Protein backbone atom coordinates (compact mmCIF):
# COMPACT_ATOMS: atom_id res chain seq x y z
CA UNK A 1 0.00 0.00 0.00
CA UNK A 2 2.86 2.35 0.75
CA UNK A 3 4.80 1.39 -2.37
CA UNK A 4 2.20 2.76 -4.74
CA UNK A 5 3.69 6.23 -5.22
CA UNK A 6 5.13 7.11 -8.60
CA UNK A 7 5.74 10.81 -8.05
CA UNK A 8 9.30 11.07 -6.84
CA UNK A 9 10.20 7.46 -7.53
CA UNK A 10 13.28 6.54 -9.53
CA UNK A 11 12.98 4.00 -12.34
CA UNK A 12 16.38 2.30 -12.59
CA UNK A 13 17.07 1.52 -16.25
CA UNK A 14 19.69 2.80 -18.68
CA UNK A 15 18.71 5.31 -21.36
CA UNK A 16 19.71 8.49 -23.14
CA UNK A 17 17.47 10.49 -20.85
CA UNK A 18 18.86 8.84 -17.72
CA UNK A 19 22.40 9.74 -18.71
CA UNK A 20 21.70 13.44 -19.30
CA UNK A 21 23.28 15.89 -16.90
CA UNK A 22 20.93 16.52 -13.95
CA UNK A 23 21.47 20.29 -14.24
CA UNK A 24 20.35 20.15 -17.86
CA UNK A 25 17.33 18.06 -16.93
CA UNK A 26 16.28 20.59 -14.31
CA UNK A 27 16.69 23.43 -16.85
CA UNK A 28 14.71 21.41 -19.40
CA UNK A 29 11.94 20.91 -16.87
CA UNK A 30 11.77 24.66 -16.21
CA UNK A 31 11.64 25.35 -19.96
CA UNK A 32 8.98 22.67 -20.38
CA UNK A 33 6.90 24.36 -17.68
CA UNK A 34 7.30 27.64 -19.55
CA UNK A 35 6.17 25.91 -22.75
CA UNK A 36 3.15 24.40 -21.00
CA UNK A 37 2.07 27.81 -19.73
CA UNK A 38 2.79 29.64 -22.96
CA UNK A 39 0.53 27.33 -24.93
CA UNK A 40 -2.43 29.57 -25.67
CA UNK A 41 -4.69 27.40 -27.80
CA UNK A 42 -5.57 23.73 -28.10
CA UNK A 43 -3.28 23.22 -31.08
CA UNK A 44 -0.26 24.48 -29.14
CA UNK A 45 -0.52 21.55 -26.71
CA UNK A 46 0.11 19.08 -29.51
CA UNK A 47 3.90 19.61 -29.82
CA UNK A 48 4.22 19.55 -26.01
CA UNK A 49 2.35 16.25 -25.81
CA UNK A 50 4.40 14.87 -28.68
CA UNK A 51 7.56 15.92 -26.86
CA UNK A 52 6.67 14.13 -23.64
CA UNK A 53 5.71 10.97 -25.56
CA UNK A 54 8.99 11.07 -27.47
CA UNK A 55 10.99 11.76 -24.31
CA UNK A 56 9.37 8.88 -22.47
CA UNK A 57 10.16 6.58 -25.42
CA UNK A 58 13.80 7.68 -25.26
CA UNK A 59 13.88 7.15 -21.49
CA UNK A 60 12.85 3.46 -21.56
CA UNK A 61 10.33 4.26 -18.84
CA UNK A 62 6.93 2.73 -19.65
CA UNK A 63 4.41 5.45 -20.48
CA UNK A 64 2.13 3.79 -17.93
CA UNK A 65 4.53 4.84 -15.16
CA UNK A 66 4.20 8.49 -16.21
CA UNK A 67 0.42 8.24 -16.20
CA UNK A 68 0.47 6.60 -12.76
CA UNK A 69 1.91 9.83 -11.39
CA UNK A 70 -1.35 11.57 -12.19
CA UNK A 71 -3.49 9.23 -10.10
CA UNK A 72 -2.83 10.78 -6.68
CA UNK A 73 -3.69 14.20 -8.16
CA UNK A 74 -6.94 13.14 -9.81
CA UNK A 75 -9.14 14.92 -7.26
CA UNK A 76 -7.29 18.20 -7.55
CA UNK A 77 -7.49 17.81 -11.30
CA UNK A 78 -11.24 17.20 -11.38
CA UNK A 79 -11.81 19.93 -8.82
CA UNK A 80 -9.85 22.51 -10.83
CA UNK A 81 -11.55 21.69 -14.10
CA UNK A 82 -15.08 21.61 -12.68
CA UNK A 83 -14.64 24.79 -10.69
CA UNK A 84 -13.27 26.65 -13.68
CA UNK A 85 -16.06 25.45 -15.94
CA UNK A 86 -18.56 27.10 -13.61
CA UNK A 87 -16.82 30.28 -12.66
CA UNK A 88 -14.73 31.49 -15.59
CA UNK A 89 -16.33 34.31 -17.51
CA UNK A 90 -17.23 33.90 -21.19
CA UNK A 91 -19.56 35.08 -23.94
CA UNK A 92 -21.11 32.08 -25.70
CA UNK A 93 -23.50 30.78 -23.04
CA UNK A 94 -24.14 27.05 -23.27
CA UNK A 95 -26.10 26.58 -20.07
CA UNK A 96 -27.50 29.11 -17.60
CA UNK A 97 -27.94 27.72 -14.09
CA UNK A 98 -28.90 31.04 -12.52
CA UNK A 99 -26.08 31.15 -9.94
CA UNK A 100 -23.50 30.35 -12.62
CA UNK A 101 -23.24 30.22 -16.38
CA UNK A 102 -21.44 27.58 -18.38
CA UNK A 103 -19.86 29.17 -21.41
CA UNK A 104 -17.95 27.79 -24.34
CA UNK A 105 -14.87 29.82 -23.47
CA UNK A 106 -14.92 28.64 -19.85
CA UNK A 107 -15.14 24.98 -20.87
CA UNK A 108 -12.22 25.33 -23.26
CA UNK A 109 -10.07 27.23 -20.76
CA UNK A 110 -10.90 24.75 -18.00
CA UNK A 111 -9.88 21.85 -20.22
CA UNK A 112 -6.65 23.69 -21.00
CA UNK A 113 -5.99 24.00 -17.26
CA UNK A 114 -6.53 20.27 -16.88
CA UNK A 115 -4.18 19.47 -19.75
CA UNK A 116 -1.57 21.83 -18.30
CA UNK A 117 -1.73 20.13 -14.91
CA UNK A 118 -1.41 16.67 -16.47
CA UNK A 119 1.55 17.76 -18.61
CA UNK A 120 3.25 19.41 -15.63
CA UNK A 121 2.96 16.25 -13.55
CA UNK A 122 4.19 14.14 -16.45
CA UNK A 123 7.23 16.32 -17.06
CA UNK A 124 8.18 16.37 -13.40
CA UNK A 125 7.57 12.62 -13.08
CA UNK A 126 9.85 12.07 -16.06
CA UNK A 127 12.58 14.03 -14.29
CA UNK A 128 12.33 12.05 -11.04
CA UNK A 129 11.82 8.72 -12.80
CA UNK A 130 14.99 9.14 -14.84
CA UNK A 131 17.20 10.83 -12.24
CA UNK A 132 18.37 9.19 -9.03
CA UNK A 133 17.50 11.43 -6.05
CA UNK A 134 21.12 11.95 -5.07
CA UNK A 135 22.06 12.98 -8.61
CA UNK A 136 19.09 15.29 -8.70
CA UNK A 137 20.01 17.15 -5.53
CA UNK A 138 23.60 17.25 -6.73
CA UNK A 139 22.44 19.00 -9.90
CA UNK A 140 20.25 21.34 -7.89
CA UNK A 141 23.14 22.25 -5.63
CA UNK A 142 25.35 23.07 -8.61
CA UNK A 143 22.62 25.13 -10.24
CA UNK A 144 22.06 27.11 -7.05
CA UNK A 145 25.72 27.47 -6.11
CA UNK A 146 26.13 30.92 -7.75
CA UNK A 147 23.62 32.10 -5.13
CA UNK A 148 26.15 31.28 -2.42
CA UNK A 149 27.57 34.74 -3.11
CA UNK A 150 24.46 36.27 -1.59
CA UNK A 151 24.74 33.83 1.34
CA UNK A 152 22.14 31.42 0.05
CA UNK A 153 22.92 28.04 1.74
CA UNK A 154 22.88 25.97 -1.47
CA UNK A 155 25.05 23.16 -0.14
CA UNK A 156 23.20 22.86 3.15
CA UNK A 157 19.87 22.80 1.37
CA UNK A 158 21.03 20.13 -1.06
CA UNK A 159 22.47 18.07 1.79
CA UNK A 160 19.19 18.32 3.68
CA UNK A 161 17.27 17.23 0.61
CA UNK A 162 19.65 14.36 -0.06
CA UNK A 163 19.30 13.12 3.50
CA UNK A 164 15.53 13.53 3.45
CA UNK A 165 15.25 11.64 0.17
CA UNK A 166 17.68 9.01 1.36
CA UNK A 167 15.51 8.30 4.38
CA UNK A 168 12.16 8.12 2.65
CA UNK A 169 12.52 4.44 1.71
CA UNK A 170 14.03 3.66 5.11
CA UNK A 171 11.14 5.30 6.92
CA UNK A 172 8.60 3.66 4.64
CA UNK A 173 10.15 0.30 5.41
CA UNK A 174 10.17 1.12 9.09
CA UNK A 175 6.54 2.24 8.95
CA UNK A 176 5.62 -0.96 7.16
CA UNK A 177 7.39 -3.04 9.80
CA UNK A 178 5.82 -1.22 12.75
CA UNK A 179 2.42 -1.46 11.10
CA UNK A 180 2.88 -5.20 10.76
CA UNK A 181 4.11 -5.52 14.32
CA UNK A 182 1.07 -3.65 15.66
CA UNK A 183 -1.25 -5.60 13.36
CA UNK A 184 0.24 -8.74 14.88
CA UNK A 185 -1.01 -7.40 18.22
CA UNK A 186 -4.48 -6.96 16.75
CA UNK A 187 -4.27 -3.28 15.76
CA UNK A 188 -6.68 -2.26 13.05
CA UNK A 189 -5.57 0.52 10.70
CA UNK A 190 -8.27 0.20 8.09
CA UNK A 191 -11.75 0.30 9.57
CA UNK A 192 -13.66 2.83 11.63
CA UNK A 193 -14.47 6.50 11.09
CA UNK A 194 -11.94 9.28 10.63
CA UNK A 195 -11.40 9.82 14.37
CA UNK A 196 -10.94 6.12 15.06
CA UNK A 197 -8.46 5.88 12.23
CA UNK A 198 -6.53 8.90 13.40
CA UNK A 199 -6.33 7.34 16.85
CA UNK A 200 -5.19 4.06 15.33
CA UNK A 201 -2.21 5.91 13.86
CA UNK A 202 -0.73 6.67 17.30
CA UNK A 203 0.84 3.19 17.73
CA UNK A 204 2.43 3.69 14.31
CA UNK A 205 3.52 7.32 14.56
CA UNK A 206 5.09 7.31 18.03
CA UNK A 207 7.58 4.51 17.27
CA UNK A 208 8.21 6.01 13.84
CA UNK A 209 9.13 9.40 15.33
CA UNK A 210 11.24 7.79 18.03
CA UNK A 211 13.21 5.90 15.42
CA UNK A 212 13.48 8.92 13.11
CA UNK A 213 15.03 10.97 15.93
CA UNK A 214 17.33 8.11 16.85
CA UNK A 215 18.45 7.79 13.23
CA UNK A 216 18.94 11.53 12.91
CA UNK A 217 21.11 11.56 16.03
CA UNK A 218 23.15 8.61 14.85
CA UNK A 219 23.63 10.12 11.41
CA UNK A 220 24.72 13.50 12.80
CA UNK A 221 27.23 11.73 15.03
CA UNK A 222 28.53 9.60 12.15
CA UNK A 223 28.90 12.67 9.91
CA UNK A 224 30.77 14.60 12.57
CA UNK A 225 32.97 11.61 13.27
CA UNK A 226 34.03 11.80 9.64
CA UNK A 227 34.81 15.51 9.94
CA UNK A 228 31.83 16.87 8.06
CA UNK A 229 31.75 20.63 8.52
CA UNK A 230 29.50 21.93 5.78
CA UNK A 231 30.14 22.62 2.12
CA UNK A 232 33.16 24.91 2.41
CA UNK A 233 36.23 23.56 0.66
CA UNK A 234 34.53 20.28 -0.10
CA UNK A 235 35.50 18.54 -3.34
CA UNK A 236 33.32 16.00 -5.06
CA UNK A 237 33.69 12.46 -6.30
CA UNK A 238 31.51 12.85 -9.37
CA UNK A 239 32.09 16.08 -11.21
CA UNK A 240 29.17 16.98 -13.45
CA UNK A 241 30.00 17.69 -17.06
CA UNK A 242 27.73 18.71 -19.92
CA UNK A 243 28.04 16.44 -22.96
CA UNK A 244 26.88 16.57 -26.57
CA UNK A 245 23.55 14.94 -25.75
CA UNK A 246 22.82 17.61 -23.19
CA UNK A 247 23.10 20.34 -25.81
CA UNK A 248 21.02 18.35 -28.28
CA UNK A 249 18.33 18.02 -25.62
CA UNK A 250 18.50 21.75 -24.96
CA UNK A 251 18.17 22.43 -28.67
CA UNK A 252 15.13 20.15 -28.93
CA UNK A 253 13.54 21.98 -26.02
CA UNK A 254 14.25 25.32 -27.72
CA UNK A 255 12.55 24.06 -30.86
CA UNK A 256 9.56 22.98 -28.81
CA UNK A 257 9.34 26.31 -27.05
CA UNK A 258 9.59 28.18 -30.34
CA UNK A 259 6.90 26.09 -31.99
CA UNK A 260 4.57 26.52 -29.02
CA UNK A 261 5.04 30.29 -29.13
CA UNK A 262 4.53 30.42 -32.90
CA UNK A 263 1.39 28.26 -32.80
CA UNK A 264 -0.06 30.28 -29.93
CA UNK A 265 0.64 33.55 -31.76
CA UNK A 266 -0.39 32.78 -35.28
CA UNK A 267 -2.92 29.95 -35.27
Amino acid sequence: MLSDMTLGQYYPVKSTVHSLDPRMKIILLILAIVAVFTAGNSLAFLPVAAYIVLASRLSNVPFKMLLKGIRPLRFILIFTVVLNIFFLPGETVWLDLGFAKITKEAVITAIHYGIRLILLVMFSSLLTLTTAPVTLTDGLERLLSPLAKIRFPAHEMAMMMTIALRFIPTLLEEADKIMKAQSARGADFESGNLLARAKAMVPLLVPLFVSAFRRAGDLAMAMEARCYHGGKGRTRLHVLKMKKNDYIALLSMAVLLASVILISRFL
Partner: protein
Amino acid sequence: MQIEFQSVTHTYQSGSPFQATAIRNVHFSVQSGEFLALIGHTGSGKSTLAQHINGLLKPTEGQVLIDGQDIHAPGYDKKTLRQKVGLVFQYPEHQLFEETVEKDVGFGPKNLGLGEEEIANRVQEALEKVGLPYNEFKEKSPFELSGGQMRRVAMAGVLAMRPEVLVLDEPAAGLDPMSREDMLQLIKGLHQSGTTIIMISHSMDDVARFATRALVMKKGTVAMDGTPAEIFLHADELEDMGLDVPVICKLNNTLRQLGLPLPEGIYEEDALFSALMNLWKGGEKDAQ
Protein backbone atom coordinates in the same frame (compact mmCIF):
# COMPACT_ATOMS: atom_id res chain seq x y z
CA MET B 1 -2.91 -26.44 16.34
CA GLN B 2 -1.37 -27.45 13.06
CA ILE B 3 0.30 -25.05 10.63
CA GLU B 4 0.72 -26.18 7.07
CA PHE B 5 2.42 -24.43 4.14
CA GLN B 6 1.39 -25.74 0.74
CA SER B 7 3.68 -24.73 -2.12
CA VAL B 8 3.87 -21.16 -0.86
CA THR B 9 5.58 -18.62 -3.09
CA HIS B 10 5.86 -14.93 -2.27
CA THR B 11 6.99 -12.24 -4.69
CA TYR B 12 7.47 -8.68 -3.49
CA GLN B 13 6.34 -5.82 -5.79
CA SER B 14 5.31 -8.28 -8.45
CA GLY B 15 5.27 -6.80 -11.95
CA SER B 16 7.60 -3.87 -11.25
CA PRO B 17 11.33 -3.57 -11.91
CA PHE B 18 11.83 -4.07 -8.15
CA GLN B 19 10.19 -7.50 -8.26
CA ALA B 20 11.86 -10.05 -5.99
CA THR B 21 10.79 -13.57 -5.09
CA ALA B 22 11.56 -14.08 -1.42
CA ILE B 23 10.27 -17.62 -0.95
CA ARG B 24 9.58 -20.21 -3.60
CA ASN B 25 7.42 -23.31 -3.39
CA VAL B 26 7.79 -23.75 0.36
CA HIS B 27 6.15 -26.87 1.72
CA PHE B 28 6.16 -27.98 5.35
CA SER B 29 3.98 -28.36 8.41
CA VAL B 30 4.37 -27.73 12.12
CA GLN B 31 2.58 -29.65 14.87
CA SER B 32 1.60 -28.46 18.33
CA GLY B 33 4.41 -28.50 20.86
CA GLU B 34 7.30 -28.34 18.41
CA PHE B 35 10.27 -26.01 18.80
CA LEU B 36 11.13 -25.26 15.21
CA ALA B 37 14.24 -23.30 14.33
CA LEU B 38 14.30 -21.45 11.02
CA ILE B 39 17.88 -21.14 9.83
CA GLY B 40 19.30 -19.51 6.76
CA HIS B 41 21.68 -16.94 5.42
CA THR B 42 20.59 -13.27 5.25
CA GLY B 43 18.04 -12.91 2.45
CA SER B 44 17.10 -16.59 2.41
CA GLY B 45 13.46 -15.74 3.10
CA LYS B 46 13.14 -16.61 6.79
CA SER B 47 11.40 -13.40 7.83
CA THR B 48 9.07 -13.49 4.83
CA LEU B 49 8.17 -17.05 5.75
CA ALA B 50 7.50 -16.05 9.37
CA GLN B 51 5.14 -13.25 8.32
CA HIS B 52 3.00 -15.72 6.40
CA ILE B 53 2.21 -17.74 9.52
CA ASN B 54 -0.18 -15.16 10.99
CA GLY B 55 -1.39 -13.85 7.65
CA LEU B 56 0.48 -10.53 7.59
CA LEU B 57 1.70 -11.44 4.14
CA LYS B 58 -0.44 -13.20 1.60
CA PRO B 59 1.17 -15.88 -0.56
CA THR B 60 1.49 -14.93 -4.23
CA GLU B 61 0.91 -18.61 -4.92
CA GLY B 62 -0.01 -21.54 -2.69
CA GLN B 63 -1.83 -21.68 0.63
CA VAL B 64 -1.19 -21.41 4.34
CA LEU B 65 -3.48 -23.71 6.30
CA ILE B 66 -4.11 -23.53 10.04
CA ASP B 67 -5.89 -26.62 11.34
CA GLY B 68 -6.73 -27.44 7.72
CA GLN B 69 -8.31 -24.05 6.93
CA ASP B 70 -6.96 -21.60 4.38
CA ILE B 71 -6.27 -18.40 6.35
CA HIS B 72 -6.84 -16.21 3.29
CA ALA B 73 -10.20 -17.73 2.43
CA PRO B 74 -12.97 -15.11 2.53
CA GLY B 75 -14.58 -14.89 5.94
CA TYR B 76 -11.65 -16.40 7.85
CA ASP B 77 -11.36 -14.77 11.26
CA LYS B 78 -8.00 -12.97 11.10
CA LYS B 79 -8.38 -11.48 14.56
CA THR B 80 -8.51 -14.88 16.22
CA LEU B 81 -5.59 -15.97 14.06
CA ARG B 82 -3.51 -13.00 15.27
CA GLN B 83 -4.40 -13.93 18.86
CA LYS B 84 -3.47 -17.59 18.39
CA VAL B 85 -0.24 -16.91 16.52
CA GLY B 86 1.93 -14.33 18.29
CA LEU B 87 4.66 -12.77 16.19
CA VAL B 88 7.66 -11.09 17.79
CA PHE B 89 9.57 -9.11 15.18
CA GLN B 90 13.26 -8.44 15.10
CA TYR B 91 14.09 -5.63 17.55
CA PRO B 92 10.52 -5.62 18.89
CA GLU B 93 11.42 -2.80 21.29
CA HIS B 94 11.15 -0.44 18.29
CA GLN B 95 7.38 -0.84 18.31
CA LEU B 96 6.80 0.41 21.88
CA PHE B 97 4.67 3.54 21.94
CA GLU B 98 2.59 3.95 25.09
CA GLU B 99 3.23 6.16 28.09
CA THR B 100 3.47 3.29 30.53
CA VAL B 101 4.62 -0.30 30.37
CA GLU B 102 1.19 -1.43 31.53
CA LYS B 103 -0.63 0.33 28.70
CA ASP B 104 1.81 -0.92 26.10
CA VAL B 105 1.54 -4.54 27.15
CA GLY B 106 -2.23 -4.11 27.35
CA PHE B 107 -2.47 -2.92 23.74
CA GLY B 108 -2.95 -6.42 22.32
CA PRO B 109 -5.56 -7.62 24.84
CA LYS B 110 -7.39 -4.30 24.40
CA ASN B 111 -7.56 -4.87 20.66
CA LEU B 112 -9.06 -8.29 21.41
CA GLY B 113 -11.91 -6.41 23.09
CA LEU B 114 -11.33 -7.77 26.60
CA GLY B 115 -12.59 -6.13 29.78
CA GLU B 116 -10.37 -3.94 31.92
CA GLU B 117 -9.96 -6.46 34.72
CA GLU B 118 -9.03 -9.23 32.30
CA ILE B 119 -6.55 -6.91 30.58
CA ALA B 120 -4.91 -6.06 33.92
CA ASN B 121 -4.67 -9.76 34.79
CA ARG B 122 -3.09 -10.62 31.49
CA VAL B 123 -0.63 -7.72 31.67
CA GLN B 124 0.45 -8.83 35.12
CA GLU B 125 0.78 -12.44 34.02
CA ALA B 126 2.75 -11.51 30.89
CA LEU B 127 5.12 -9.17 32.75
CA GLU B 128 5.81 -11.78 35.44
CA LYS B 129 6.46 -14.34 32.70
CA VAL B 130 9.19 -12.20 31.18
CA GLY B 131 10.66 -11.58 34.61
CA LEU B 132 9.63 -7.95 35.17
CA PRO B 133 7.82 -7.46 38.52
CA TYR B 134 4.40 -5.98 37.72
CA ASN B 135 4.23 -3.46 40.54
CA GLU B 136 7.70 -2.15 39.92
CA PHE B 137 7.36 -1.70 36.17
CA LYS B 138 3.72 -0.99 35.36
CA GLU B 139 3.93 2.79 35.82
CA LYS B 140 7.31 3.23 34.13
CA SER B 141 7.67 4.67 30.66
CA PRO B 142 8.89 1.97 28.27
CA PHE B 143 11.39 4.48 26.88
CA GLU B 144 13.32 4.82 30.14
CA LEU B 145 14.14 1.11 30.39
CA SER B 146 17.35 -0.63 29.37
CA GLY B 147 17.58 -2.38 26.00
CA GLY B 148 17.06 -5.84 27.45
CA GLN B 149 14.10 -4.69 29.55
CA MET B 150 12.51 -2.97 26.56
CA ARG B 151 12.82 -6.17 24.58
CA ARG B 152 11.10 -8.05 27.40
CA VAL B 153 8.28 -5.53 27.61
CA ALA B 154 7.72 -5.89 23.86
CA MET B 155 7.73 -9.65 24.26
CA ALA B 156 5.20 -9.37 27.10
CA GLY B 157 3.02 -7.34 24.72
CA VAL B 158 2.74 -10.40 22.52
CA LEU B 159 2.46 -12.92 25.37
CA ALA B 160 -0.46 -10.97 26.84
CA MET B 161 -2.52 -12.20 23.91
CA ARG B 162 -1.91 -15.77 25.15
CA PRO B 163 -0.81 -17.18 21.81
CA GLU B 164 -0.70 -20.93 21.16
CA VAL B 165 2.09 -20.47 18.67
CA LEU B 166 4.90 -17.97 19.15
CA VAL B 167 6.93 -16.90 16.13
CA LEU B 168 10.16 -15.11 17.04
CA ASP B 169 12.43 -13.33 14.59
CA GLU B 170 15.91 -13.41 16.10
CA PRO B 171 14.76 -12.73 19.64
CA ALA B 172 18.29 -12.54 21.04
CA ALA B 173 19.83 -10.28 18.38
CA GLY B 174 21.76 -7.31 19.74
CA LEU B 175 21.45 -8.24 23.42
CA ASP B 176 24.33 -8.51 25.85
CA PRO B 177 25.31 -12.09 26.82
CA MET B 178 23.31 -12.13 30.02
CA SER B 179 20.09 -10.68 28.58
CA ARG B 180 20.56 -13.05 25.70
CA GLU B 181 20.69 -16.09 27.95
CA ASP B 182 17.68 -14.81 29.94
CA MET B 183 15.73 -14.39 26.71
CA LEU B 184 16.55 -17.90 25.52
CA GLN B 185 15.68 -19.42 28.91
CA LEU B 186 12.39 -17.51 28.79
CA ILE B 187 11.60 -18.98 25.38
CA LYS B 188 12.58 -22.44 26.57
CA GLY B 189 10.22 -22.04 29.54
CA LEU B 190 7.38 -21.01 27.22
CA HIS B 191 8.01 -24.09 25.10
CA GLN B 192 7.98 -26.34 28.15
CA SER B 193 4.66 -24.89 29.25
CA GLY B 194 3.12 -25.95 25.96
CA THR B 195 3.57 -23.07 23.52
CA THR B 196 4.63 -24.05 20.02
CA ILE B 197 7.76 -22.08 19.17
CA ILE B 198 9.02 -21.10 15.74
CA MET B 199 12.29 -19.23 16.10
CA ILE B 200 14.44 -17.60 13.46
CA SER B 201 18.05 -17.78 14.56
CA HIS B 202 21.54 -17.23 13.30
CA SER B 203 23.15 -19.00 16.19
CA MET B 204 23.63 -22.71 15.56
CA ASP B 205 24.54 -23.18 19.20
CA ASP B 206 21.10 -21.92 20.20
CA VAL B 207 19.48 -24.21 17.65
CA ALA B 208 21.45 -27.16 19.01
CA ARG B 209 20.45 -26.35 22.58
CA PHE B 210 16.77 -25.66 22.20
CA ALA B 211 15.16 -26.74 18.94
CA THR B 212 13.39 -30.03 18.43
CA ARG B 213 13.45 -29.52 14.69
CA ALA B 214 15.23 -27.25 12.25
CA LEU B 215 14.32 -25.96 8.82
CA VAL B 216 17.19 -24.71 6.71
CA MET B 217 16.30 -22.11 4.08
CA LYS B 218 18.42 -21.47 1.03
CA LYS B 219 17.56 -18.78 -1.52
CA GLY B 220 13.87 -18.93 -0.68
CA THR B 221 13.47 -22.69 -0.68
CA VAL B 222 13.61 -25.30 2.07
CA ALA B 223 17.02 -26.95 1.77
CA MET B 224 16.85 -29.23 4.81
CA ASP B 225 14.21 -30.25 7.32
CA GLY B 226 14.93 -32.48 10.29
CA THR B 227 16.04 -32.76 13.89
CA PRO B 228 19.18 -30.81 14.79
CA ALA B 229 21.09 -34.12 14.88
CA GLU B 230 20.06 -34.86 11.30
CA ILE B 231 20.82 -31.33 10.13
CA PHE B 232 24.27 -31.17 11.70
CA LEU B 233 25.29 -34.38 9.93
CA HIS B 234 25.54 -32.17 6.84
CA ALA B 235 28.11 -29.81 8.30
CA ASP B 236 29.84 -29.33 4.95
CA GLU B 237 26.65 -28.37 3.13
CA LEU B 238 25.73 -25.93 5.90
CA GLU B 239 29.12 -24.29 5.62
CA ASP B 240 28.68 -24.05 1.84
CA MET B 241 25.48 -22.11 2.47
CA GLY B 242 27.43 -19.67 4.60
CA LEU B 243 26.04 -21.11 7.82
CA ASP B 244 27.90 -22.20 10.87
CA VAL B 245 27.65 -25.44 12.83
CA PRO B 246 27.74 -25.64 16.64
CA VAL B 247 31.15 -25.47 18.26
CA ILE B 248 30.81 -29.00 19.67
CA CYS B 249 29.90 -30.26 16.22
CA LYS B 250 33.04 -28.66 14.80
CA LEU B 251 35.18 -30.13 17.58
CA ASN B 252 33.71 -33.58 16.99
CA ASN B 253 34.40 -33.36 13.25
CA THR B 254 37.99 -32.23 13.84
CA LEU B 255 38.59 -35.09 16.28
CA ARG B 256 37.15 -37.52 13.75
CA GLN B 257 39.44 -36.16 11.08
CA LEU B 258 42.36 -36.69 13.45
CA GLY B 259 41.39 -40.34 13.54
CA LEU B 260 39.42 -40.74 16.78
CA PRO B 261 36.61 -43.27 16.26
CA LEU B 262 33.81 -40.95 17.42
CA PRO B 263 30.24 -41.25 16.10
CA GLU B 264 29.05 -38.76 13.47
CA GLY B 265 26.72 -35.85 14.20
CA ILE B 266 27.38 -35.17 17.89
CA TYR B 267 26.45 -31.58 18.69
CA GLU B 268 25.87 -31.52 22.43
CA GLU B 269 28.52 -31.03 25.06
CA ASP B 270 27.29 -33.89 27.25
CA ALA B 271 27.07 -36.29 24.34
CA LEU B 272 30.61 -35.55 23.19
CA PHE B 273 31.88 -35.81 26.74
CA SER B 274 30.37 -39.26 27.27
CA ALA B 275 31.54 -40.43 23.85
CA LEU B 276 35.08 -39.36 24.73
CA MET B 277 34.77 -41.00 28.16
CA ASN B 278 33.69 -44.23 26.48
CA LEU B 279 36.69 -44.07 24.18
CA TRP B 280 39.02 -43.39 27.05
CA LYS B 281 37.63 -46.21 29.19
CA GLY B 282 37.75 -48.52 26.18
CA GLY B 283 41.37 -47.50 25.62
CA GLU B 284 42.22 -48.22 29.25
CA LYS B 285 40.70 -51.68 28.95
CA ASP B 286 42.72 -52.36 25.80
CA ALA B 287 45.87 -51.29 27.57
CA GLN B 288 45.28 -53.66 30.45
